[in-house]
């Protein structure tokens, strides 16, 4: 398709405008678009745009069973709905709990890749059971401090230190 303005270059920008229910179409080349003051904002790379869009849209699976959006992480109580609002996850285990919903997003944000390739920690992190135990102990500790049960708080603190050391 040729540019409607210069009739020389290929039209690469296609505008559709709907005003008062009437539809107007315009096909122009990049140069004429710039001359006409139609800004071609290419600063936002396409995968950033996609991942932003994806972050606010539920996946097909979730739409099929809306209850899935309400599933919350047993460790941090995060839900997919909250993640879409906040843009950040609540704890490392959300990657397992919401894997199905997160995977399409991860894939798009990382150019189709879904498996780590790169640096590995020289020390193997403590196993899942120990890490989730730490989550729960810290939660109990918080509650103990709030209710001023310092004896219990001290015991919990010792337990945490023992697992971590």
């Amino acid at each position, binding site marked *: 398709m040729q540019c409607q303005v210069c009739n020389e270059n290929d039209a690469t920008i296609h505008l559709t405008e709907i005003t008062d229910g009437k539809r107007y179409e315009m096909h122009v080349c990049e140069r004429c678009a710039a001359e006409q003051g139609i800004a071609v904002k290419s600063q936002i790379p396409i*995968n950033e745009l996609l991942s932003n869009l994806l972050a606010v849209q539920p996946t097909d699976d979730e739409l099929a069973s809306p209850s899935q959006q309400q599933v919350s992480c047993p460790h941090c109580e995060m839900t997919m709905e909250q993640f879409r609002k906040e843009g950040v996850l609540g*704890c*490392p285990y959300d990657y397992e709990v919401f894997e199905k919903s997160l995977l399409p997003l991860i894939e798009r944000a990382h150019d189709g890749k879904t498996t780590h390739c790169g640096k590995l920690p020289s020390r193997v992190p403590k196993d899942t059971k120990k890490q989730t135990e730490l989550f729960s102990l*810290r939660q109990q500790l918080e509650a103990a401090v709030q209710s001023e049960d310092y004896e219990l708080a001290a015991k919990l603190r010792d337990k945490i230190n023992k697992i*971590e050391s």
Partner: protein
Amino acid sequence: MILDSRYSTSIEVYPPQAESGIERREMKLADISNDINEWFGGTGPMSDIVISSRVRLARNLAGHKFLIRCSNNEKAEILKKLRDVLMSLDLGDKVFYISVDKAPALNKHLLIERHLISHHHAFGKGPRGAVIAHREFFTAMINEEDHLRIQVLKAACQLSQCLEQINKIDDMIEQKIDYAFSPRYGYLTACPTNLGTAVRVSVMLHLPALKMTGQIEKFFNATRDMCLAVRGLFGEGTEAASDFYQLSNQVTLGVSEESIVSQFENIIIPEIVEYEKAARNQLLSKQSDLLDDKISRAMALLQNAHLISSQEALFLLSHLRLGINMRQYMGASTPAIDRLSKISEADGKKNLSIATINRLFMLTLPAHLQLNYGKELDSTHRDALRAQIIRSALNA
């Protein structure tokens, strides 16, 4: 003229543990605010176009939730743990610690202007801090979006060196702390877009000729095709200020740190540097009137203005930087460039150097101006002081 009154607010400073234990010394942020840092003022490979290189890693502690689900108590626990580890490292330089949540707004702006912390970190919520090497090549932001973000910043094109150094520091931290890591997804980050290596590789580019010749779209198209993010001088959320562009990778999963860096060093940077060089040659051979007009106007305004905003100063200084670099690196000689090269420095001894221009870029930024002046100033007073500093530096 740089006034030497010092801003009175001090920050906590902990030089690394001396053998006699932790020695505390009071230090004022003005100690760093009246000079330029190495990454901006330095020279090195392609420094006429590549201003600086940065590699940043995001890390979270195992056994802790991500920050959004942490109470202030837990954030304080994370902060203390990481601060103690970081302050005990041997980085080959003195380090100082800043309680970012308690710092005055002006100090935070200073750290943002020097690219030591992010806007998000400066104005976020809850206990948070920054560990900064005295020479500013290294910063750790504690409790930004992730528990820990560490960066190494160097002048010119030195990404491999940045990666090597940040990896060493990361290894030292890892000896003392467990990171949240999954064999499948790599280093786990609060936002899935940073997952995997959690590495952000960036370069700051100065592309005035592409902008002048109306070819900056070429640069944007190239970056779009290579899945790169373009930001302004001050990172996320800032518009491309004047002719400086910060370019960084977006894909962090499924590619190694080394291949991201090598893609930048072998493909991306050379391609963009070539574009900018071609545009500079085009200005010399075909559009020297345009080039001379821009340089002469910049010179006339900077030497004569009595009020100048930081945005305008960035734009105009950028044209002087172009002129001086074209003479130095391409042997360019046009009437405007020749006039520019005859201007002497404030001390009247030598000719205007790129180092002076770089200094002016940094020292006329709003927080730098105010900290060096010794008090907060409204925008009119800032514009007047900025114009005065520039006029005297350009020996008008």
